[in-house]
């Protein structure tokens, strides 16, 4: 990132002159140079070449936007892999890292381009919400293009970012209060989770979600608040909000209270405690079985000792009559039947 502050070009406060205005100016006049904006939440720099956005570089304190962190959080790259890449290669910028990832087949071009475009839009979403800070535009003749990002139309990026900001405001209202803690409803107690390999579990879960949803799903650990999940998700604030609402509506995640959430699952006897509600269901089933047995066994009394029911009494009468008729039929078969001789 170009951190050198120079006197030529534009230098203004966000309070006086909005970022979108200067961007439109750069686009309309097809300027080339670097636009850098800085506030207490972080710093971001975009490179323009004849009005098109060709590169960017950002650092935010509350949001995960750096490529390394995104790759680590999405388990594409582990810490050890990153260290070994640093040892073996000269990784001065993100561009170097991306080239190495392609050469080592850790990622591919399309995936990186997609990630970078999302990061670019996210950088706009974050910075366009800033109300305090300074920015500077430094014209330059020679601008390096990002190797894995096609030149972008600034107006499109601005419009898309503003749309996301607007819709996100509505979604955040629905998610209020954002300090609530949710956890995924696929609960695993300690004894169960010990038998499940974490990486394999993630692979299994991936079958059910798309990549973005899975990244958000992973953050529901019963400790992070919704605000933290939105900020730390690598899918961007807008998509995180959308996914969280989707998860809550579909009961993929459930609210964890302070008394019962994560802490309870870490209790020494998780299975026994859990089973109490299941036992309640079994008690009802047992009662149903027993009452049915009592009704059928004692209600449908057959014989003199038990109280007859209408059904059993009629059946007995029918049976007796049936036997009598069979007896009469048997008598017909006797050759010296007195009825016959009559």
């Amino acid at each position: 990132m170009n951190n050198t502050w120079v006197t030529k070009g534009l230098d203004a406060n966000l309070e006086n002159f909005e970022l979108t205005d200067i961007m439109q100016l750069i686009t309309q006049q097809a300027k080339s140079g670097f636009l850098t904006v800085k506030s207490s939440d972080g710093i971001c720099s975009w490179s323009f070449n004849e009005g098109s956005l060709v590169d960017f570089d950002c650092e935010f304190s509350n949001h995960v936007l750096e490529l390394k962190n995104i790759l680590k959080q999405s388990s594409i790259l582990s810490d050890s892999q990153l260290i070994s890449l640093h040892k073996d290669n000269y990784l001065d910028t993100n561009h170097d890292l991306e080239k190495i990832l392609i050469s080592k087949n850790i990622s591919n071009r399309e995936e990186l381009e997609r990630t970078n475009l999302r990061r670019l839009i996210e950088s706009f979403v974050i910075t366009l919400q800033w109300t305090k800070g300074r920015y500077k535009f430094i014209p330059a003749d020679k601008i390096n293009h990002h190797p894995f990002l096609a030149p972008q139309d600034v107006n499109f990026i601005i419009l898309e970012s503003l749309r996301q900001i607007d819709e996100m405001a509505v979604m955040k209202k629905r998610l209020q209060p954002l300090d609530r803690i949710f956890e995924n409803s696929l609960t695993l107690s300690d004894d169960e989770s010990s038998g499940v390999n974490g990486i394999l579990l993630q692979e299994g879960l991936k079958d059910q979600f798309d990549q973005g949803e899975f990244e958000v799903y992973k953050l529901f650990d019963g400790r992070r608040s919704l605000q933290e999940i939105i900020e730390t998700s690598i899918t961007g604030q807008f998509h995180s909000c959308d996914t969280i609402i989707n998860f809550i509506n579909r009961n993929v995640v459930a609210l964890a209270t302070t008394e019962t959430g994560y802490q309870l699952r870490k209790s020494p006897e998780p299975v026994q405690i859990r089973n109490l509600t299941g036992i309640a269901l079994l008690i009802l089933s047992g009662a149903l079985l027993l009452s049915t047995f009592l009704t059928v066994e004692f209600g449908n009394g057959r014989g003199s000792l038990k109280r007859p029911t209408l059904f059993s009494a009629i059946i007995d009468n029918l049976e007796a009559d049936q036997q009598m008729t069979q007896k009469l039929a048997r008598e017909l078969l006797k050759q010296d039947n007195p009825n016959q001789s009559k």
Partner: protein
Amino acid sequence: MLKSTTKRSCLREKPGTAYSLILLSIILLLFVQILPTEVRADSNLQDAWQEIISQQPPSCDSLKPAVDRFINIQQQSNIKNISIYSLALIQMAADDKLSPVVKETLTTAAIRISPEYSFPETAFCKLMFEQHRYPTSLVSLFRALKKFQSNPLESLYASTFFWLALAFTPLALLFFLSLILSIKYYRAFCDKGNLNLSNQGRLKTILISLTVAFLIIVLPAPLLGLLILSVSLALLATRNDIIALLLLVASLIIVPLAYEKGMASLLALDSSFFKAARSSTSGINSEDNEAYLTQPATNQSQLVLQLFAQAEAARRRREYAKATFFLEKIIDNRVEIGAVYNNLANLYILQGNYEKSEALFVKAAKFEKDSGIPYYNLSVTYIQKNFNLQKSSQALAKAFKLDPSLSKVQTDISNSESELRSGTRLFFMNLPENFYRRYADAQPGKKIYLPEFFQQVLFPGVNLILYFILISVSLAGLIYFLYQTPANRRICSNCGRMFHPVQKIKEKHCPICLLNNSSQTSSLLNGFRVMTNSSKLYPLKIVKAVTWVLIPGSYPMFAGYTMIGSGLMFLTVLWFYNHLICQTTIMAPFPPSTAWINTLLPFIIWSLNFIILIFMLSPKRRHKFSRGNP
């Protein structure tokens, strides 16, 4: 019964003038000389019959001409069916010593003698099945079924079978479904309790369930338990399962109505088929029987007649508790007849219950003001109860005053309507002659079968309105939970864990089970272990595995194929119902008792279940191996 009594009394009251006697003699003479068809048919038939049964041992060559002659006489006499002879021929064919051909000849003859009845066809169907001539047997079964529902006498059996099946099936289906689902959702309830309930909440849940269980057992009220369990299950059930529960609970609406119809048919049977068979040795059914015994009661008098007839039948067999039961049903129906009170009081005495009988005799005397019998019986009660000679003699005096003939019958020991107990005679009464006229137009004001039904399945005092309210509340609860339930809810068929996949997946296993199933052997025991997601076989898991094999449709239910499971279970419940009703033996002569329905149907159902079980488990194994060998 009522009509025969009326006829006797009419004869007694007829003036015996000489003119009328001569006229009567002429009519009788004409009747004997000109229209003696029935009488002569009787004697000719008996001769022909003697010819059939006199053959020892019977052979086909000799049987056929004899049977043909018998049937010729039957046809000449315009007699369509002679069911008692058909029954006798079927009994004759049951002799093991006879050759298969002779058996077939005899059973075929039974069919020809009673061509409109299904019981000879049923016997023929059974015979063919035993002789392994299955196509013939099956064709015969269809013929029997056709006759079974079209014959006016036997159709009552068919009607009873149908309506009681309609009452039994939804109840049994919901019962089995709820029990299976409670095993299926056990794990889900455990997990969900962990997520949403506090410590106090869990304790409250246990306490509430224990209280409800106690009430259900003590009352006992199985239907209430069934409804509570169904709605409880819907808390965490998948949409498919809730829809299945919803449909079954909705179908409970017709249960009491079907039960009412079925029991009315059952009561109307009153052995009408066998009575007709017995009373028609000449082949002509008694119209008296058919007048009121072959139809379900459509008014109060018919109902009372049927109940009274049942009570008399039970009393004659000395089954006093049952006879009492029938008479009490008449009184429950708010029909007050002196004869009923008198006979009921007698039955109480015969069971040693003198307290109740005294009041009933007084009531009987109130309604039968011209009869001395209630007072006579009352006098016996006083003697039996506490040897109160004074009261007894007063009652006896009233009895003799009203009916002087009673003073003579003390020596008439051969009276068929008396019962002896402790050396004392009790007099039973018939229904009054004007009874039918009195109640003919009165519709049954009260459903006599439903209170018993509700008492059995719910608790005493429940009426139809309360029943419908309970069903409606349950339906409302189920619809509410159906609306609340997310469409993507799944229960893992292996471990029972609840999960909510965002994408539509074909596999109905949770991610953890998919991963755990990577290295398994193919032994059956291990298969069950895999299915239950554990290295150990816990009792609940063994119960699950046994349930899948024993109860058809239970595995598809577990695996989320609710409709396949319900279909299989429906067939099983139908067979189970057929088995139960055949246990009562009243269906013994009819199609439901044939091996096709009783033996072969369960074989087909369990085979189908086994095939489905194998089919559903095999893709899972393929999946396991494929995942185990990436």
